[in-house]
């Protein structure tokens, strides 16, 4: 009987809708292309970096690149040791994190646990505005405002120094750290906060002993991603730290970071295909590897914290 009913329905109505299917397929292709551009860009960048580095490392041994203490590729007697650039990057980033981690964390705890919703609506946009300021403005802020100010305290401080660049970079990263940390803390279920409050804990005890440890993976991932921002930051250090590659951990001295060197060479008139030209790719690859490792760690931590509760 039911068999009868089925066969009596016109097969025409059940046949696939050609136009609809074509439209669906076309949309799918457009979406796929859009999604693949980012993947393709990343792969292309990696390819070009590796290709140029291949030529670079034919001239300069990797061992020399990693151990030589001088970076003077543009001099008559060139030396290609990445260490001075690495030390500049590490010093400025460390100073930046020294500022951004405490400030960002405290701001996040305040916004997530203490501020009432009205105040949060006012403070958060201001904090996020900090992230919207172009970094070159931060660079001049460091050079023309922070450095003279610091020179009043430390008269021997040179006009270009890593301390000022690092401090301002820290300011720049603070909203980044606080925003991600706050998200992590706000994702902690209200049930845990109530549990702690019900035990007679104060707001501060609840924030520090329950909410913070619950959100620790998200918070540490915000630190790592902040570090990756600091390592990759260019304009502030190029403007305010001086462009002298300098193997030192002293924040009061001048220094160049990997990024600052790349800007310097890219802006100059270095001929394509020369070894000087290829140095920026070697430096760039080092930078990409550093941020890649940091991002992978950050990603891993962020993923783990979502699984806790």
């Amino acid at each position, binding site marked *: 009987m039911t068999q009868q009913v089925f066969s009596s329905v016109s097969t025409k109505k059940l046949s696939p809708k050609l136009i609809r299917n074509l439209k669906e397929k076309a949309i799918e292709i457009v979406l796929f292309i859009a999604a693949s551009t980012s993947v393709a860009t990343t792969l292309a960048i990696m390819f070009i970096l590796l290709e140029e580095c291949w030529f670079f490392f034919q001239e300069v041994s990797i061992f020399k690149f990693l151990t030589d203490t001088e970076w003077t590729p543009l001099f008559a007697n060139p030396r290609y040791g990445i260490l001075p650039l690495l030390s500049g990057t590490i010093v400025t980033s460390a100073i930046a994190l020294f500022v951004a981690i405490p400030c960002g964390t405290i701001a996040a705890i305040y916004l997530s646990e203490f501020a*009432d919703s009205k105040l949060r609506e006012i403070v958060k946009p201001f904090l996020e505005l900090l992230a919207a300021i172009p970094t070159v403005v931060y660079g001049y802020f460091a050079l023309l405002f922070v450095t003279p100010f610091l020179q009043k305290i430390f008269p021997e401080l040179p006009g270009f120094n890593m301390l000022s660049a690092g401090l301002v970079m820290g300011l720049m990263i603070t909203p980044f750290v606080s925003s991600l940390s706050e998200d992590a803390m706000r994702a902690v*279920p209200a*049930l*845990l*906060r*109530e*549990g*702690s*409050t*019900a*035990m*007679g*804990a*104060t707001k501060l*005890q609840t924030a520090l*002993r*329950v909410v913070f*440890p*619950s959100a*620790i993976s998200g918070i540490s991932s915000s630190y790592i991603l902040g570090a990756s921002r600091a390592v990759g930051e260019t304009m502030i250090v190029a403007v305010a730290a001086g462009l002298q590659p300098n193997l030192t951990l002293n924040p009061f001295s001048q220094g160049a970071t990997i990024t600052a060197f790349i800007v310097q060479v890219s802006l100059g008139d270095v001929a394509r295909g020369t070894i000087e030209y290829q140095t920026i790719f070697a430096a760039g690859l080092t930078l990409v590897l550093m941020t890649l490792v940091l991002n992978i760690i950050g990603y891993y931590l962020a993923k783990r914290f979502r699984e*806790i509760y």
Partner: protein
Amino acid sequence: MVEQLEKAIDFQPVAEVKHLDFYYSGFHAIKNVNFDIPEKKVTALIGPSGCGKTTLLRCFNRMHDLYPGNRYQGGILVNGVNILAKEVDPIEVRMRISMVFQKPNPFPKSIFENVAYGLRIRGENSRTVLDEKVEDALKSAALWEEAKDRLNQSAYDLSGGQQQRLCIARALVTEPEIVLFDEPTSALDPIATNSIEELMSGLKQKVTILIVTHSMQQAARFSDYTAFMYMGELIEFDKTETIFSQPAQKRTQDYLSGRIG
């Protein structure tokens, strides 16, 4: 109603609810509730969803203070002191009236530190005191045998039922007078539910228990007194057997027989 209350009071009250009203901003959630909580007994709060039973429970440890716009009126007297009064410190109240929640909510700490939490936040750091009190609390919560060899493991390694017993131990460690249970078994399977119920029946030797439950069977099984709430009002409060066998109010009867709720 007055008559009935008088009939029910053949006990020593540990807390007296007097003309209690509660408002969530504009919403009048608890309407003029009056009753006494008997000492070292289990009192169950029952009623349909949204009747205000959890709201009433959360007045007892001032959990409503956490969110803006909430307002209490009237009082809950414990030893003659109105714990809802502005000059009473809610943190002190929560030391003496602790709470177990609907879902187990252990902190991201070890089993030991979860139980020790209430002592730690009061500045207790002596290892011997902590060891002793944590052990007592875990024993009271019937978790000691299962947990004693893994006190330093994360509380999240425990099963759901064990986590809830851990939360009970945590609530007991400060030696409160009253423990509030907000549907403590609603997230648990029947076996875990059974063990928590046994545990609560045993606990009334030591503390007064006030429990919100959705399950009338649960209320009937182990509570001594039952309060039936409906639309923010306390409809009836009496010995559990009286409520279930011969309720005085028609609405109680209707609820128990499944006609409302």
